[in-house]
């Protein structure tokens, strides 16, 4: 593509974003303000992730884009095509082969390596936002490490519902300092936040970038007597038989019958290719 610079953004903008990324990596979990640009896709559709990916991509990279764990969801397709067109990089659906993975709402099941970067699309970067709508206040709370409000919220959950009633975008404390919103991943994925790969979070509309460097502590908030619990549907995958992958529940007929399948489509495919089979594997093949 000759009309646009490599990966769409001009080099100065990429430099500005890279500086924000480096600052984010230096202060894990801290939300770095950056001058987010208007992108040719709408705010709220991954513009933060796209800008972080654009600033991180090199011509030798291989890009994977997932939404809800799947490579073939419409917005993942759209973002992958955008980079195919504007950066001309190779793309893949295989987690293993990707050097940069842009994701919305999931962490891949397969463990990521040190030479991989996971880029999250973030709608609301501020974990305290729904407790305090004002940015001026929440920034103050972070700088004073004043997270009492969050613990009160979790406590009220328990007193009202008998459990912490947050099932996704479950807050974590990063490197024993900043409370961070891991983006709306299901809390099942929270334990995976401590990983070998670099994790970058981009919120375009809200103009924030933050990061979790490799091998960094990311502790899901809880209480001693109500410990954090990563939950999923209590089934194996009906296609590949996986016992410990996050599952989508699919309504299969008018009678309301259900099946459960891995949300990570690449994980499910690779397991089936390796010969694993679930309850309905045969029917699907037919």
């Amino acid at each position: 593509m000759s009309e646009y610079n490599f990966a769409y953004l001009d080099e100065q903008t990429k430099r500005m974003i890279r500086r924000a990324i480096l600052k984010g990596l230096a202060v894990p979990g801290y939300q770095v303000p950056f001058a987010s640009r208007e992108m040719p896709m709408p705010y709220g559709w991954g513009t933060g992730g796209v800008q972080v990916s654009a600033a991180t991509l090199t011509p030798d990279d291989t890009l994977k884009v997932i939404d809800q764990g799947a490579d073939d969801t419409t917005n993942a397709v759209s973002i992958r095509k955008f980079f195919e067109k504007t950066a001309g990089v190779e793309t893949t659906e295989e987690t293993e082969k990707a050097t940069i993975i842009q994701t919305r709402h999931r962490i891949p099941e397969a463990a990521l390596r040190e030479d991989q970067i996971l880029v999250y699309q973030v709608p609301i970067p501020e974990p305290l936002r729904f407790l305090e709508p004002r940015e001026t206040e929440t920034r103050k709370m972070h700088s004073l490490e004043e997270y009492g409000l969050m613990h009160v919220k979790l406590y009220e959950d328990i007193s009202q519902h008998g459990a912490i009633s947050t099932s996704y975008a479950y807050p974590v404390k990063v490197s024993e300092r900043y409370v961070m919103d891991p983006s709306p991943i299901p809390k099942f994925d929270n334990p995976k936040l401590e990983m070998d790969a670099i994790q970058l979070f981009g919120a375009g509309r809200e103009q924030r970038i933050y990061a979790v460097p490799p091998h960094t502590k990311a502790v899901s908030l809880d209480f001693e007597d109500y410990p954090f619990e990563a939950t999923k549907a209590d089934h194996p995958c009906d296609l590949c038989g996986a016992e410990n992958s996050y599952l989508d529940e699919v309504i299969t007929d008018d009678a309301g019958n259900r099946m459960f399948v891995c949300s990570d489509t690449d994980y499910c495919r690779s397991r089936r290719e390796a010969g694993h089979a679930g309850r309905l594997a045969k029917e699907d093949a037919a």
Partner: protein
Amino acid sequence: MYVAVKGGEKAIENAHAWLAEERRGAIDVAELSLAQIREQLSLAVNRVMAEGSLFDPDLAALAIKQARGDLIEAIFLIRAYRTTLPRFGYSVPVETGKMACDRRISATFKDAPGGQVLGPTFDYTHRLLDFKLAAEGEVASAPEALPRTNPTPHITEFLTGEGIIQDEPPSDATPGDLTREPMEFPSNRPLRLQSLTRGDEGFVLGMAYSTQRGYARNHAFVGELRIGKVEVQMDIPELGFAIDIGEIELTECETVNQFKGSKTEPPQFTRGYGLVFGQSERKSIAMALVDRALRWKELGEDNMGAPAQDEEFVLSHADNIQATGFLEHIKLPHYVDFQSELELVRKLRREAEERVTMKEAAE
């Protein structure tokens, strides 16, 4: 049987093809030209330029055509294009005192140097559908007069001399740039004005209206409203002086607001300011009212807790491209999060039922 939902790529392509067809409409109806849109839907073009923050009537017309007349979509196209343009530099401030006015009215003085010029306005038209327009027809040309050659002075200048209106001390400080730095709060007036001038017309209008209805009322009069063309000048380093690089149409509104004085300020009139690309009258008046409401702190007024006084609230929600993107993103798949909510609600219901059963058993 369940078949993995594949084929998103093909579906997207087909949807785009259908969209293109719908955009064109019935092919036995002549296609709109950009010149037609630019000339005959010029107020739509103006709005797209104002909120798209790019003065280019031809590109705005193209965006309106491509967006099927959805102006927010057209504004989005312009914004996305504008962000790719290299930044050569900044113009010197435009001199609206030298504006060649098509329209210039004041509600505070019956007459003033430069006169009241109604210009091409909908005001005083009776809003009756003109069925003649349904048939094609030539328009009789309007009577013409010789244009004023002298500059038209700002009305508020006449009040400034008397010291009866709050002074606006000039400053040579370089204002921040909303499109180059992230918005942080508390912000400042230049950034607020930048945000308002590209803000959604409906939102800014609603905010302004709320001040008129008593949510931080600021008693505004339209001191002056002027619409016309101004020269844009830029310093050329090689030349060492500024030269004209073009002209743009602007609407400027200065409100004069009643003010009884505060703890820090004497009784005097205060000001609100609106400046918008093109002929954008409603927007510039609304902008001036909201600007004035947001100045409560600097004028030592009380915070009434009104939405229009709340800088963080107004500026965070004025941009329709941000708003529409985030609003519409809830169309995207959210089934992973929904699944985890399903698990949670099922678990909570199970536990609630168990509690009831246990309680009944105990009784």
